[in-house]
């Protein structure tokens, strides 16, 4: 055997081939582990009570049975583990059916505490037999022992126990099953009884922490022999679908940049962006003070998206969906039909219910389920109540990365407190965005008018001009602004006045031009009249001249006839006269 191994080692390529892995089917975990848990080996899953170990282990088994065709055995050593396992049915899995189909075995190993008399040498062969029988009865490929540490409270001979546990894990390997062993966190060691000494292939730690008032669950892969794995802590949540772990977003900026463009839903705005709109898969930030029309821009984008036949997912963190629909209707955008059809999905909730990670997870989940091409997050600024600026930035970075990989175009609205043009938090967040539209209010006279300005838009030529943004009941309009004589932006009534003035001016000019051209026409007509007269005179002269020429010719003809006649009368030789031409 040793010879073969060394030969194979030299033949293998530099990069060691990855371990065969058993996919967990748990959202996010397979990405984190590079394919799943080590196949045919035990994995240690430790964490405090209530952190989700049993749930994760159960999900591994059930998904293995249902999705990967690998039957599984669940051995519960504690009653609550058994209860939890049975409660797994509430997550939408029919455990009874799986047991009946011989895809799952659920057994409870009763450990008597303090009732056992230990009277000499023994081993735990009974456990092996039990396990072996269960595994063989359904041909199981996956096994969960939850939690093996319970043995320590029932049996006092730790030496025997440890020896047997070691034997157990070796035995599991020979059985070729992928096993999850759960254990509780210890004070000084990873697990209370130091199981990590024996289960060395893969160790995952679950954590359930309360930060401030937010409870977050975290998962960390402490060890995974022979495989690369994410080493950070990853937040996860448990809901009616099971466990969802925040997927690893490749922080290596490897995603492709699309050259496709999508309309913003507002023609004039597209015109400001090279006549095409946003880049597909790009991130757009619309920031501005309250009431500047950010949500309406988002609504236009949503409307444009569903009109194209694509799906839009709208996360509303301030208003309810019916509020948004009603408000947008007042400016002529009707989002109701799309919402009813299901191409526009609203998800409204106040940010303060959950922590940042939960929101991130919820967004991930919904996006994976709904598969939109466009996502609206309106607004992001409410998150400041549940996280620091740095945390929000981190969350947004992950989100934007996630969207880019999926080629989802995302529009974020951000509320800036009025008065300030740019705030530091704007700047921090805006650096993550490809396009930044700034909505402002201009005070002129006694009016406040809204203006829109493209602050930046990566990768495209865009207008750097400010446009006035008007919300009328038949829609939004973007109008050119006027720079008045003193260089002041004129909007609203001042702009209207200037417009009127200019209109009058141009009208006057038009009239002048018309007058001039009329004069020209007149002059030409006069000239043409003169020409006509000249021509007529000329014609008359022509006629007279022709007449004269005609008379002349007649006279010449008469003269010639007369001569001939006179010659005849003189009785000269007619022939001689006729032949005279010779002499002539």
């Amino acid at each position, binding site marked *: 055997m040793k010879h073969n191994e060394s030969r194979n080692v030299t033949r293998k390529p530099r990069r060691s081939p990855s371990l065969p892995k058993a996919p967990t089917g748990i959202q996010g975990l397979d990405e984190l582990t590079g394919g799943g848990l080590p196949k045919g080996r035990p994995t240690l899953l430790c964490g405090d009570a209530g952190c989700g170990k049993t749930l994760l282990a159960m999900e591994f088994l059930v998904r293995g049975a249902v999705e990967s065709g690998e039957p599984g055995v669940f051995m519960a050593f504690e009653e609550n583990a058994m209860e939890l396992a049975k409660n797994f049915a509430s997550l939408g899995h029919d455990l009874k059916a799986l047991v009946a189909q011989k895809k799952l075995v659920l057994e409870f*190993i009763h*450990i008597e505490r303090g*009732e*056992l008399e*230990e009277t000499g040498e*023994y081993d735990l062969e009974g456990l092996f037999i039990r396990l072996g*029988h269960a595994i063989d009865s359904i041909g199981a490929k996956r096994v969960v022992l939850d939690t093996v540490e319970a043995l320590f409270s029932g049996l006092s001979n730790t030496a025997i126990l440890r020896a047997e546990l070691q034997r157990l894990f070796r035995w599991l390997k020979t059985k070729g099953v992928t096993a999850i062993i759960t254990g509780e966190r210890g004070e000084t060691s990873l697990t209370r009884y130091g199981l990590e000494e024996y289960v060395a292939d893969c160790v995952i730690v679950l954590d359930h922490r309360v930060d401030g008032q937010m409870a977050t669950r975290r998962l960390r892969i402490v060890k995974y022999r022979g495989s690369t794995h994410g080493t950070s802590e990853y937040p996860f949540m448990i809901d009616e679908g099971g466990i969802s772990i925040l997927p690893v977003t490749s922080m290596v900026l490897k995603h492709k940049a699309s050259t496709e463009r999508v309309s913003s839903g507002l023609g004039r705005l597209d015109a400001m962006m090279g006549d095409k709109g946003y880049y597909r898969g790009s991130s757009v930030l619309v920031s501005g003070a309250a009431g500047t029309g950010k949500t309406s821009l988002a609504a236009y984008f949503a409307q444009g998206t569903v009109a194209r036949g694509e799906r839009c997912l709208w996360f509303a963190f301030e208003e309810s969906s019916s509020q948004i629909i009603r408000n947008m209707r007042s400016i002529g955008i009707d989002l109701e039909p799309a919402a009813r059809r299901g191409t526009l999905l609203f998800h409204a909730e106040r940010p303060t219910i959950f922590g940042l990670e939960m929101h991130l997870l919820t967004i991930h989940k919904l996006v994976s389920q709904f598969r939109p091409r466009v996502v609206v997050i309106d607004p992001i600024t409410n998150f400041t109540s549940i996280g620091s600026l740095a945390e929000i930035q981190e969350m947004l970075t992950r989100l934007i990365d996630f969207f880019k990989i999926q080629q989802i175009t995302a529009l974020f609205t951000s509320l800036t407190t009025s008065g300030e043009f740019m705030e530091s938090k704007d700047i921090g967040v805006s650096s993550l965005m490809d396009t930044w539209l700034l909505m402002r209010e201009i005070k002129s006279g006694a009016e406040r008018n809204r203006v829109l300005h493209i602050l930046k838009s990566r990768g495209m030529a865009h207008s750097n001009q400010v446009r006035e943004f008007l919300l009328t009941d038949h829609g939004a309009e973007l109008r050119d602004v006027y720079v008045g004589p003193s260089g002041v932006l004129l909007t609203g009534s001042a702009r209207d006045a200037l417009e009127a003035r200019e209109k009058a001016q141009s009208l006057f000019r038009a009239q002048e031009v018309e007058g001039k051209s009329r004069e020209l026409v007149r002059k030409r007509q006069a000239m043409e009249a003169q020409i006509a007269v000249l021509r007529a005179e000329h014609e008359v002269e022509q006629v007279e001249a022709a007449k004269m020429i005609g008379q002349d010719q007649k006279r010449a003809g008469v003269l010639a006839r007369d001569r001939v006649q006179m010659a005849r009368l003189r009785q000269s030789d007619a022939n001689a006269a006729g032949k005279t031409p010779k002499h002539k």
Partner: protein
Amino acid sequence: MAGQTPKSLVAIANLKRLCDDHLKGRRYRIEVIDLMVTPQLAKDDQILAIPTLVRKLPKPVRRIIGDLSNIERVLVGLDLIPASRTSA
């Protein structure tokens, strides 16, 4: 027991001796179950350790694990002598 291992044979021998010594004149029945032959009984009787002695009657059911070399412990476990010393 699980197969004819030395531990199991010792246990059976110890058990026989114990019964001869302490259950003279009493009616008892010893049933030896080999889990290698009937593995499903491991689940039914919740047997983990081998060898295990289960006293089914009189109730309550008592379990004793080990090769029964500690006679005193066995007797305490079978309720044949009172548990005067510290518990297990």
